[in-house]
Structures are given as C-alpha cells and as structure tokens.
C-alpha cells in the first residue's frame, strides 16, 4: 500500500509541477505586458501528497489606486499644457513674434516715423500697412481661438465616445468576472482586462472604485458621479459645429450630472475631459476677451473728435461704426470684426492723408483744414492715446485700468505665467505617474530571472518525482520478480 501511495504522490507531484511550469511560462511570456499581474501557483497540502489549489494573482490595491489617480492628474495636466502650447503658437506666434503686443509696437514705431516726417506720404502708407498688420493679427488670432475651441469640442466628443466604449467593455469584463467568481473559475485574465480598462478610463475622467460581492466593481468619478454600477451610465455630449466668440460650449453629462471643468494653470482637472472643458470654456474664452478688448482699445484710441460732434471711429472701424464702442465694456467678437477704415486704406482706394489730418468722418473732424504738409499734432495725439490709461472689462482677466500698450503685454504675461506653471506641474505630475507605474510594476509584474530560477526548482522537482516513480517501479519490478 505504501508503495502505491508513493507512486500516486509522485504522480500528483508531476501534475503539480507541470501546472506550476505552465504558470511560469505564462508569466515569462507576459513579462513585458504592463497590464499583466504576476500569477503564483499556491500549493496546499491535502491527504496523500500536495495538490494545487489555486492560481493567485498578485495585486496591490493601494498602489493601483495611486497609479490611477496619478494617471488622471497627469492626463489632465498634459492635455492643458498641450492646449496652451497650441494656443500660444496659433495666436502669439513663436516667442510672441506675432502677438498683438509686438505688432502694436511695430505700428507705434511706424506712427512715430510718420509723425517725424508727416509730409512724406510713403511713411503714411507704411503706418497704415503696420495698422493693417495689427488688424490681421487680431482677426487671425480671433479665428485661431474659435477654431481651437471647435477642434477641442470635437476632441471632447471623441473622448466621450471612447469613454462610453470603454464603459461597455468594462461591463463585459465585469460580467465575466462575476460569473467566473460565482462558479469558481479562474477569472484572472478578466481581472487583468478590467484593470487595463480602468487605467484607460482614468485618463479620461478620474475614477474611484469599490468592489462588492462576487468581485462586482462599481466605478464613480472622484466627485461621486456614478459611471458604472451593474450597467454603464450614459455619458452624453452634443458637439457644436462651430464657435462664435462669447458663445458658451455644451456641457458633458455623466449620468445626467454636468462634469465640472478644471481651474487654474496647475489644474485641478483630472482626466483629459475636464482639462479640455477648461481650455474650451475658460482659457480660450478669456484669451478671446483680451483680443476683443485690445481691438476696442485700438478703435477707441484712434477715434476722431470734434467740438459739437459725437466721437466717431477713425482708422479702425467695426460693425457699429461710426459710433465708438462703449468704454470699459467687452464687445464679443470685436477682434474678429475690426477692420481698417476704407476711407483711409490706400488699397481700398482711400486717402492715407486722412490719418494725418483727420476728417475720416467728414470735414468737421479735419484738424488740418489748411492741408499743411508737416502737421503732426494728430499723429502725436494718437501715439499718446495708446499710452494713456483706459478702462478694460474685468472679463479679460487682467488689469482693468492700464494703457492699451500695457494691456497687450499684460495679456502675454497672463498667458505665459500660466504656461510656465502648467509646464512645471506637468513635469511633476508626469514624474508621479511614472513613479507610481514603476512601483506598481515592481509589486505586480514579472521578473524573468525569478521565474527562470523557479523553473530550475521545478525542473529539479520534476526530475525528483520522475526518479521516484522510476524507483517505485523498480521496487515493484523487484517484488514481482520475487513472486514470479
């Protein structure tokens, strides 16, 4: 009886060893898969010999959650930074070379040259060309911001589609896990898949999870909005085909609750959805307001005045011309609609001398009725007005009382300050995401060397078991020979 039992123990050991070997081989083959958690074959002893009870999946919940939250933060911050980089290039150009502040400086320079020699009409045309550049920068900047908002809007739509897709994948994985857990099947592969989906989801919205009976997982956003509970909750968003300045964007609803956009340059937005909402509804809108206020400042600085007549727009005009836009109040989309007065623009057949003499709005506004060639008073007055303090709308997010020329540089300061903070924050959040991923990988991923040394052990065990069987066989042979 004892020989037979030795034989059966050795047989069972062979079986165990081969199962363990298959686990090792699985581990080795998945060594470079970041979503794979290491398996170990747990042996527990039962009656005659050992028997494999379970294949265990190594997990570390704490690190996994940390990694999810770091991923969400990094994803939000890097989305914000990328958006800021794109905006600064589109609106201000490389090194702010085509920013409103820079072209305004060039225009001031051209005006200075013209005022030094007002009899030289070429300088007048050059000054008007510089003014055209300012107008074009504002128009282009406004267009760029609105197309940025539109493309961000479609990115949001894509992210929402992805999120819904991920949630339905999650449902499949979750169902498989629940069913497997109930029937005691090996659900490790489904668990891997579910964790991988969670990582992808947390790049879009920040999640927190808890697990109920039968390994059923519930996902909510960190704000507490339910994303998945038995079934995925609907994430809805209707994209807009195009954006006009000042037009609000549509909200993203998760389970009927609107998702909040992030705030600040070191953004509290976790996940790229909140960061994109912040870019679309806060940063781009403020930037547009700054361009609009710059346009209003220009129109106001170059207004024409005359005793007994109302002030009227001069070199720069808008849809409301000849009325000057009301002081200190934002006019949405002004930067997109500002243009040069046709009466002055030589390309439109206008008379550039009107810039020197005034009178764009008729003879009453002419400051130089004698048509003196070197009259510079008005040109100098225009130059002074660019440097005079004026009131700006608080919606532009920067100084409400400054000169036009300071306002434009303050706008750059506002933006670059934000970009610097965002870049620094992105670096630290990236480092955290990398570190937590590494820590998680160290806890749960495979070390090939360890697996190989395990394999050596298994090989030894297998050989020993085989040798045992051989020995028992020999003994039995000897016994049978004695009987024969």
């Amino acid at each position: 009886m004892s020989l037979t039992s030795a034989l059966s123990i050795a047989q069972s050991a062979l079986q165990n060893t081969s199962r363990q070997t298959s686990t090792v081989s699985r581990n080795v083959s998945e060594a470079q898969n970041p979503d794979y958690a290491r398996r170990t074959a747990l042996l527990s002893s039962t009656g005659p010999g050992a028997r494999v009870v379970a294949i265990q999946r190594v997990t570390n919940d704490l690190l996994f959650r940390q990694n999810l939250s770091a991923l969400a933060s990094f994803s939000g911050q890097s989305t914000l930074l990328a958006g800021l980089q794109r905006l600064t290039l589109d609106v201000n150009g490389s090194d702010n070379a085509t920013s409103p502040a820079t072209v305004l400086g060039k225009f001031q320079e051209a005006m200075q040259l013209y005022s030094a020699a007002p009899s030289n009409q070429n300088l007048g045309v050059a000054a008007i060309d510089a003014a055209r550049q300012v107008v074009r920068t504002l128009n282009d900047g406004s267009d760029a911001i609105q197309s940025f908002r539109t493309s961000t809007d479609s990115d949001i739509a894509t992210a929402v589609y992805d999120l819904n897709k991920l949630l339905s994948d999650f449902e499949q994985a979750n169902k498989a896990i629940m069913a497997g857990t109930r029937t005691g099947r090996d659900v490790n592969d489904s668990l891997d898949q579910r964790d991988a989906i969670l990582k992808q989801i947390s790049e879009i919205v920040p999640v927190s999870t808890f697990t109920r009976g039968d390994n059923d997982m519930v996902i909510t956003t960190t704000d507490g909005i339910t994303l998945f509970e038995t079934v995925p909750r609907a994430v809805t968003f209707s994209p807009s085909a195009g954006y006009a300045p000042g037009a609000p964007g549509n909200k993203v609803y998760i389970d009927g609750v609107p998702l909040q956009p992030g705030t600040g340059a070191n953004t509290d937005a976790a996940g790229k959805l909140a960061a994109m909402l912040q870019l679309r509804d806060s940063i781009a809108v403020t930037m547009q307001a700054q361009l609009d206020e710059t346009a209003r400042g220009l129109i106001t600085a170059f207004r024409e005045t005359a005793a007994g007549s109302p002030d009227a727009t001069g070199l720069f005009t808008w849809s409301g011309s000849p009325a000057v836009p009301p002081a200190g109040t934002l006019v949405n989309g002004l930067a997109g609609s500002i243009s040069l007065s046709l009466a002055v623009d030589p390309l439109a057949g206008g008379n550039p001398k009107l810039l020197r003499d005034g009178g764009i709005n008729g003879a009453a506004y002419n400051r130089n009725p004698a048509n003196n060639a070197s009259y510079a008073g008005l040109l100098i007055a225009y130059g002074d007005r660019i440097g005079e303090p004026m009131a700006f709308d608080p919606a532009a997010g920067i100084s409400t009382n400054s000169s036009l020329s300071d306002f434009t540089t303050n706008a750059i300061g506002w933006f670059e300050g934000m970009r610097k903070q965002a870049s620094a924050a992105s670096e630290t959040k990236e480092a955290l995401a990398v570190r937590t991923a590494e820590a998680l990988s160290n806890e749960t991923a495979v070390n090939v060397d360890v697996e190989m040394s395990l394999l050596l052990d298994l090989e030894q065990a297998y050989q020993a078991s085989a040798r045992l069987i051989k020995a028992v066989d020999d003994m039995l042979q000897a016994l049978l020979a004695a009987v024969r």
Partner: protein
Amino acid sequence: MKTTFVSSSAVSSALRYSILRQQAELTRVQKEATTGFVADRGLALGARTAQSVTLNRDLERLSGIVDSNGLVSSRLAATQKGLIQIGDAAQSFLSSLTSSASGDAAYALTQKSARSTLDTLTSVLNTSLNGEYLFAGTNTDVRPLNDFQPGSPAKAAFDAAFAGYFTFAKDDPAAQGITAAQMDDFLTTVVEPIFLGAGWQGTWSNATDQGITSRITLNETTETSVSANDEGIRKIAMMSAVVGDLLDSNVGNAARKVLVNRAVSTIGVAIGEISQLEAQTGIIEQRVSGATDRIKMQMDLFERHILDTEGVDPYRASNRVSELLSQIEKSYAITARIQQLSILNYLS
C-alpha cells in the same frame, strides 16, 4: 515571506524616462548655447514675459526715435545755418545803412545792399531739406516766402499801397515832394501793417506760425522748426524790400533820409531778434541731442536688463551640453549592460 521585488519591465524601462528627459533638456540647452538666450522665454520667465516683451518693444521704439531725432537734428542744424546767414546779411545791410545815414555812401549802394539782403533772405527762407521747406512752419510743401519782383503779387500789393497812400506811383515826378512827415506816417500806418500785420500772410508768406511738432523721447514733444513768420525775419524782409524799392525811385532826399533812419533802427532790433531765434534754436538742438543721449543710455540699460533676464551664460550652457551628452552616453551604456544581464545566459 515578502522580499523586495523588481519586475523585469521596470528594470528595462527604468532609464527610459530619464533618457527622454535628458534628451529633451539637451535640445533646449543646445539652443541656449548657440543663441545665448533662454530657449523658451515664456517658460523661463512666466508672468515676467510681459516685462520682457515691453522692454523689447520699447527698445525698438526708442531706436526709431533715435532715428527720427537724427532727422530733427539735421533740420535744426540747417535752420541754425540759415539763421546765421540771415543775421550776417542783416549785419552787412545795417552797416551799409549806417554809412548811408551818415551821408558817407550813396543811396544807390544802399539800395543794392537792400536788394541783395532780400535775395539772401528769400533764398535762405526757401531752403528745403528732404523735400520739406525749412522755414515753412507746418506748411512744408509750399515755398514759405514769395518773390518780391516786378509782376509778383507782393510787389503789386506794395505798389498799390504806395499809390493808395500818396495818390501817385513811386516813379512819378511828384514823389520828389514827399515830406519827411509823410514818409514817416506812410511807413508806420501802411508799410508796417503789410509786413508786421495782417498783410504778411498769403501775400508775402505761406508759412504757418505753428512749427513742426516732434516727439523726441517716448513721452516728450517739442516744436522743432522755425517759421518764416518770426518778427525779426519780417522786419528784415520789410526794410530790405522797402529800402530796395524806394531808393530806386523818384522819392526825394528828405523822405529817403527818414526811410534810411527807420531802417537802421528796425534792422538793429531785427538783428537782436534773429540772434534770439538762433539761441532758441540752439536750445532746442541741445534738447534734442540731450534727449538722444538719454534714450541711448536708456537703451543700454534696457539691453542690459534684457540680457540679465533672458540671457544665459554661454559657457555654462555649453558645459551643460557636454555634461548632458556624457550623462546620456552613460545611460546608453548602462541600458546595454542591463539588457545583457539575464539569467538565461547562465542556463545551458
């Protein structure tokens, strides 16, 4: 038993992140080493970028003002030269008048001197620089001083005024009988209003009283030209025209004596006024060149400040480049070693 565990993927990707960071920094530092300025102003300065943009913009504007101040200075220098010529001409006219008043020189000589003074005055006042008449006030595309010649409106107006007062022309024999008192009254009530009063503008001068205004620093403007309508210039024009015209006529000696005496006193005053004008022009010249010096100093300060805020030490930058290069090389070497490090090499 729980032991320290390291996963294979963590080992092989440990250096990947740091190599990426180092390479990103390398591109940045390379740019800094070659340009001498920070690679990305916005990222380096943050909110202070506003200051940097303002400084760079003001620097350009200041250099524009330095250029336009050069233009103003050359205008003022030419004006100064013109005023000296006018002063000299008036001086020699005065000496000719004095010798004529004391009876040493014939009236014919004085008349010639008056003519040449008027010619000098006309040619100097009608000088142009860069296509702008210097003494025209702001009306720089029109000759400031009209000719006083037979057939010209100024001449016709003067002849008409003479005929209107005396009821005969200056070459009429009756002119011989003009008394000293009559001439004195004519000079005071008719000639002076023509030149010093309302008759000047349009007939004689096309200049405006207002001179050219120029911005000479970022926030300082000043008048930087002299107008032909200045009192001293008008007086010289008046006396040289009247003396040159009436000494070449039938006007009698009594009246001529009054005329010459009046001319002596008026030109004497005018010379004083012209030198006053020269002094004023000199002061403005001084102010403009002072402004230019101040601006240049300001520009130096701005440039230094820009270098302080945005510049990088090129030696440090190039040191950093070589440092990074060797670091990256080390990372590569370590990565290669790690890849070779595997238990598989020892299993056979």
